């Protein structure tokens, strides 16, 4: 996947991103790591086009992320599953497919069933999000993102609200998706997952990219910031 970030800055009340630049071409799965408040969630939201930067431009696979067409090429998995609470797991998928992608009911059902089965939810799909576990809801949210047949799947700390057992369950499900040949951009605080799953790692601190490279940088950090971070998360 091609990622091009040009002079991106973002300010809410304080500066969150400070003149970021990034140019990647050949990686399939990019992980962004860093402490809370380092700007990593803001960056992934900008890269997905969910939020607009106050300055700068972002191009992914040749698309300006502000382009409406780009939204059809991506899937996004939020920190908390963010399923629509009044719809069953299946309906969360079929409604979106029918209303925004123009699928017939039968086709939409088939796609939903296929993706929910892929995430081992075939016996939960007629339940409301509140009636399944956090891990199941998060997997359903991944199934929903997959059902849009995106080129790139964004995962914004998909396990941050889950306990260790559910975290393992969700990460295992994501690992299994590798065979689908999709591209991934993810924020995670689980270092072992970043190491195993990603082929490129970006470490952020105070709104800037401090260090980047293959997952091996996690084991032999060059900068003092990443070194300190790795000691804290260990």
């Amino acid at each position, binding site marked *: 996947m091609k990622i091009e970030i040009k002079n991106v800055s973002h300010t809410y009340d304080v500066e969150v991103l400070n003149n970021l630049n990034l140019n990647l071409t050949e990686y399939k799965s990019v992980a962004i790591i860093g402490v809370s408040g380092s700007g990593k969630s803001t960056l992934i939201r900008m890269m*997905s*086009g*969910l939020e607009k930067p106050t300055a700068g431009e972002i191009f992914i696979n040749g698309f300006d992320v502000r382009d*409406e067409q780009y*939204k*059809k090429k*991506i899937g*996004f998995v*939020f920190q*908390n599953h*963010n399923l*629509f*609470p*009044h719809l069953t797991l299946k309906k969360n998928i079929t*409604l*979106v497919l029918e*209303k*925004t992608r123009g699928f017939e009911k039968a086709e939409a059902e088939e796609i939903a069933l296929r993706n929910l089965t892929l995430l081992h939810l075939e016996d939960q799909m007629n339940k*409301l999000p*509140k009636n399944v576990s956090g891990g199941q809801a998060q997997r359903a949210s991944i199934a929903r993102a997959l059902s*849009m047949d995106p080129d790139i799947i964004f995962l914004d700390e998909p396990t941050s609200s889950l306990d260790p057992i559910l975290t393992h369950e969700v990460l295992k499900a994501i690992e299994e998706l590798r065979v689908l040949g999709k591209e991934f951009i993810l924020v995670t605080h689980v270092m072992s997952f970043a190491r195993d799953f990603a082929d490129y790692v970006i470490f952020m601190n105070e709104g800037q990219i401090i260090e980047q490279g293959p997952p091996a940088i996690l084991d032999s950090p060059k900068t003092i910031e990443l070194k300190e971070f790795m000691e804290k998360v260990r």
Partner: protein
Amino acid sequence: MNKIFSYILAILTIAAFVAFVVFRQSSDFSLASFEPYKNLISQGILNTIYVSIMSLLGSLVLGFVFYLLSISKLKYFNALTDVFTEIIYGTPLLVLVVVMAFVIGPAFGTFNRNVMGFTALIIYMTPYMKNVYKSAFSSISEEQYMAMDLFGFTPFQRYRYIIIPQVVRILMPPLMNNFSMIIKGSALLNVLSYNELYYAIRVTQSQTFAFVEGYILMWVLYLMITIPLSQATKYIEKKWSL
């Protein structure tokens, strides 16, 4: 089963208390003297229900307008709803009804007291309705809007499939509570001689001199309107909860 039994026991306890109080009355307790006035009283019940429903509908609309004003970008509108809310919160409904019918109405050339009575009820309920809308709409998270944006829902589709189905569920229980408030509040329209339930009974009392019985009858009749309503609320709350 245990729960149903508890409820039956609770109702029997209250009934026993009421029976005790009734039997302790010195005079003979009888509702028979109300028999000739049953048309007047029925009309009173119907009018109470009618005025309550109209006030509910009116305050639903006005409350929504006020909700929109309260979230408006224009600070003046926010301030206006704040000041209005403070005033209404501190105003007894009886005072509002009288002021509406005898002061504000005539100032605008309206001497129709019944209409001004309705209006007072509607205006009284408006801030409460505004709050109902506020809590309902704030229950839809920022991230849900992001998801709708990401999937590319049109504004119509957002409201039709995502926002309204959720908001209605949250809206219903407090709405029913407000409705119950309106029903009881409508009794104050008796000061305008509007023939609602309270007024009908008062008239009957003055003819039969059965004051205690009249109030008991009135009490029972109001309960017959409000209890099914609150039961319906509980049912909806349970069935639609998220």
